[in-house]
C-alpha cells in the first residue's frame, strides 16, 4: 500500500512538472506496427487522434499520405508502414495518427495501434544493432529493453527527413529544400 502511494505521489509530481524536460525523460510512447513494438520519445508527441479522411497531395513520396484538418490546422500525414516498406494494411478503427511536433512543425504518423506510455531508463537502451540488411536501420535510435519485451526506439526526425525525401523533392528549388530541413 505504502509503495503504491509512493507511486501515485510520484506520478502527481510528474504531472505538475510536465513542462520540464526531466519529467519526460525516459518516457516513450509505444505503438504496434506489423509484428513489432516501437517507441518514440514522448516529448515529441502532442496528441493521438483516430484515423480520419486524408486529402491526397500530388507529387509526394508514397509514404506522405496527404494532409488532414486538425481543428483548423493543416498537418501532413505520414504512413509509417509505407515508410518502412512494409505491406500496406487497410486502416481500421484501431489505426491511429500520432501527432508529433518537431521544430515547431506538426506531422501526423499513421500507425496500426497505440499501446502505452512506457518508462525505459537510459541504461536499458542499447545502441541499434548493425544489420547488413537494407537501410531501414537508419530510423532506429536504439533498442529499449523492458523485461522480456523489446521496443524499437525510433529517431523521429530521421523518420521525417532523410536523403530519400530530399531526393524526391529534388524538383523543388534548393531554397525550399533547405527550409524543409531546417523545419
Amino acid at each position, binding site marked *: 500500500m505504502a509503495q503504491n502511494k509512493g507511486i501515485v505521489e510520484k506520478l502527481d509530481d510528474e504531472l505538475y512538472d510536465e513542462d520540464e524536460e526531466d519529467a519526460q525523460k525516459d518516457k516513450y510512447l509505444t505503438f504496434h506496427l506489423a509484428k513489432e513494438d516501437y517507441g518514440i520519445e514522448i516529448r515529441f508527441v502532442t496528441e493521438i487522434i483516430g484515423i480520419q479522411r486524408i*486529402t491526397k497531395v500530388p507529387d509526394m513520396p508514397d509514404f506522405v499520405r496527404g*494532409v488532414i484538418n486538425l481543428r483548423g490546422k493543416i498537418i501532413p500525414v505520414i504512413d509509417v508502414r509505407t515508410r518502412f516498406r512494409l505491406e500496406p494494411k487497410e486502416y481500421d478503427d484501431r489505426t491511429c495518427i500520432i501527432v508529433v511536433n518537431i521544430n515547431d512543425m506538426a506531422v501526423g504518423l499513421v500507425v496500426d495501434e497505440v499501446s502505452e506510455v512506457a518508462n525505459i531508463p537510459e541504461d536499458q537502451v542499447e545502441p541499434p544493432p548493425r544489420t547488413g540488411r537494407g537501410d531501414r536501420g537508419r530510423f532506429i535510435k536504439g533498442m529499449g529493453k523492458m523485461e522480456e519485451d523489446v521496443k524499437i526506439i525510433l529517431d523521429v526526425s530521421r523518420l521525417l527527413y532523410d536523403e530519400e525525401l530530399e531526393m524526391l523533392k529534388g524538383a*523543388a528549388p534548393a531554397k525550399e529544400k533547405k527550409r524543409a530541413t531546417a523545419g
Partner: protein
Amino acid sequence: MVEQLEPAVIELGQSCGHVNCWETMECGNDICVRYGKEIEFPCWLHVGYVESALGSCIGGATRQDCLNCKVFQLINGDSQTLNAIFRLFHSMKGSAGFLELENICGVAHAAENLLDLVRSGGIWIRPQHVDLLCTTCDFTKDALDYLQDNLSDKGMAEDARLVRDNLTEAIKQANDALDAGRKTYLTKDGAKEPEEERTADSMQENTSSEKEFLITTQMVEHFVQEADELLQAFEQGLLKWINSIDDMEILGDLLRNIHSFKGNCGFFGYVDLEMLSNKIETIMDAVKEKANVDKHKAAKVMLELVDVLRTAMFDISNEGAGAISNLPLYLELIESLLPKGWLVTPGKEKGSLFLGDLLIEQGSVSPKEIQIALEEQRKPLGDILVKKGVVTKRQVQEALKKQKEARSMMTVAPVIEKKVKVAPKDVLKRQDIRVNLTKLDSLINLIGELVIAEKVVVNNNDLHDLQLDNFNKAAQQMDKIVRELQEMAMVIRMIPVSGLFRRMIRLVHDLGAKSKKRVVLKLSGEETEVDKSVIETITDPLVHLIRNSIDHGIEPQKERRKAGKPDEGTVRLTARHEEGEVWIIIEDDGKGLDRQKIIEKAISKGLIEGDGSELSDKQVFSLVFQPGFSTADKVTDISGRGVGMDVVKQNLKKIQGKIDIQSRQGVGTKVTLRIPLTLAIIEGMLVRVGKSKCILPILSIQETFRQDSNKIIVSPDGQEIVRLREEFIPILRLHEVLRTEPDYHKFKDGILIVFEAHEKKACLFVDEILGQQQTVIKGLSSYIGNVKGVSGCTILGNGEVSLILDAGTLVYLAEKQEDNNRTVMKGGE
C-alpha cells in the same frame, strides 16, 4: 526614431546645393573677399558678417541674416530637415544618456557636433558626411539590436569608438579647412568667437527655431497620446508619493516620467511645456538630491502644475500651440520652492546638454569662469561688439532693426504653416492602443477558425434533408456577422507602406554612390495600406527591383547627357489601389529593357524557339524572370547574376501577386507589382474529379462549357486542344495533375473550364463543378513544401481539406505538355 533618421539624413544630403553667392545674389560687390572665389566653407559666418565686422558682404548684417540668407540655405540644405535630424540625434543622446548607455550617447554626441558645425555654417555637407551619418544610423541600429539582446551597450564599445573617431575626424578636417580658409581670405585676424559661445548660441536658436518642423499630424497624435499617458502616470505617482514621501523608487519613476514628457515636448517644439516640465524636473531632482525642499508643498504645487500641463495638452489636441498663459508665474512658483543657489547649477541632471556644464565636468573650467562667460553671453552681442570697438552703435542699431524684421517674419511663417499642416480635429481624437503582435495574430487565427467552424456547423451533414427555416435564417445572420468579423480582422493587420518605402531611400543613396550615378528616389502613395505579411514579402523584391533600376536602368551621367536626359536619374516608387489590388510601381527613367538582347540570350539558353520576333513585348520581358537569366555583360557587386528577378517572382507568387513589366528602350522601365488586397480569403470554384475536390480561384476562370470528344483536336504528340471561337486552347486533365482516378474520361461527360494566367489560357477538364465559395487559404505544411499546381489548401464545410489550384502553374503545366511530355500522361487514360 532611428527609422526616421536615415531618410532625413539622405534628404538633407540631397537638398544641399553647390552655388556661388555672388552669382545667386547677383551681387556686384567685387571687393568682397568671397567675390569670384570658390570658398571651401559655405558662408560668411566664418569670414565674418557685419556684426563681427570682418566681412564685406552687403547681404547680411547679423548672424541671423546669414542664417536666413538664400545662399546659406541653398548650400547648407533644408534647414527644417537639418533641425529635425539634429533633434533626433539630440533626443537619442538624451534617452541614451538617461539610460547610461555611454556608447550610444557618445556617438550621438559626436554626430550632434558635426551637425552643429553644419548648421552654423562651418562646413558643407558633402557626400562623405552623409555617408558618415548613415553609418552612425547603422551603428545605432546595431547597438539597439545588441541592447535588446544584452540589455547593455557595453559590447558595442569598439564600434562606437570607430564611428565616433570618424565623426571627430570629419569635424577636425572641417575645422582645419575653416582655419585655413580664414587665413587665406581674411586680412584681419579673425576675432574668434569663443567656442562655447557659439554652441550656446546655437542652443538658443535651437529653442527659438524649434517651431519649424517636419512634424505631421500623425506624430502630433502620437505625441498627445503618449504625453497623456505620461502625465497620468506622473499624476498617479505624485499621489502615491504624497503618502510615502521618502520613497526614492516612486521619486525615480516620477523623474523618469517627467523627463520623457519634457523630451517629447522639446522634440515637438512646445517650448512652454518643455520649460515648465523642465522646472518640475529640476525640483524633483532637488528633492532626490536631498536638497532642502518642502516636499509636501512641492507635491501639492506639482499636482496643480500637472493640471496646467494637461490644459496645455488639451490645447495642442485642439490644434493649439500648447502655450501656457501665466508661465512666468508658475516658473516663479517653482523657483520659490527650490533652495537658494540650486538654480545656479542646474546642470546636475544626467546627460547635461550645456557645454559649460560638460566643461566643468571635465574639469577644464571652473563653474565661476563659466558663470562669467555666461554673464557676458547674456549681454546683447551688439553691446559686446561696441565695447570691443569693432562696430559703431549706429551700425548695430541698424542691424538690430533688420534683425527684428526678419524675426517677426520668422515667427509668423511657422504659425501659418502649422495651420495648414494640422488636419481636421476628428483625426486627432483617434485613439490607438499598442497591442502585442502575437496576440493580434492569434486573434486573427481564431477568427479564421471561427469562419471554418461556422461553415462546418451550417453545412453539417446531420442537417441534410431537414426542414430548417428558422435555423437557416439564424445561420444567415451568423454568416453575415462572421464575415464582417473577418473583414475587420484583415483591416487590423493593414499597415501603411511608408516604413518600407522610407527604407529604400537609404538603399538608393548607397547604390547611387556605389555605381557613381546621381539618383533621386521619389515616393508617392506612402499612406497606402497593405497586409503586414505583404510588407515582409515584398521587401526583398523591392530591393532587387530598385537595384536593377539603378545598376542597369539608369545610365551613367555621360550617356544621360548624350540622350538629353537630366543628369540626375529618377526612380519613382508608387503605391496605390487599383482594380481591387494594391499596385506597387517601380519606375525609372533609364535606358529600358533591350528586347533584342533578351531574345538573343533566351535563344542561346534555349528558352525560346525561332527568332522570337512573333513574341509580344510582355512575353519577351517575362523571360527576365527565369532563374539565372541575365543580359548583363559583366557581374557587378550590385547585380548581374540573374538571381534577383527570380526572387521577385517567387516572393510575389507566395502572396498570389502578379508582375507587369513595361519598358521603352531609351525612355525607362516600369515594373508593377500587383498584390491582391486580402491574402487570406479568395473567391473560389469548387470542382470535383473522382473523389478529390479542389478549388480554382474564380478570378482566373473565364468560362465553362461542355464539348463533344470529336470536337477536340489531338496533335501528333498527343496534346489535346479545344477550339473556342477563334482560339486554340490546350487541355489539361485535372486527374492527371492530381494523379487520381476520374469518373469520366470522355469530354462530353465532364466539363471544361477555361482559365487564364500570365496572359495565357488553358482548359481544365474536370468531372463536375460543385459551386462557388469563399475560401480561407491555408498553407500546406512546410514539411510538404511547394507542390506543382497547388498554391495551398482550405477546409471545406464538412471539415474536409481541399487543395487550392494555382492557375499560374497549371497554365505552365498545360504548356509543358504541349512540348512532348505526353507519353507518361497517356498512361492515365
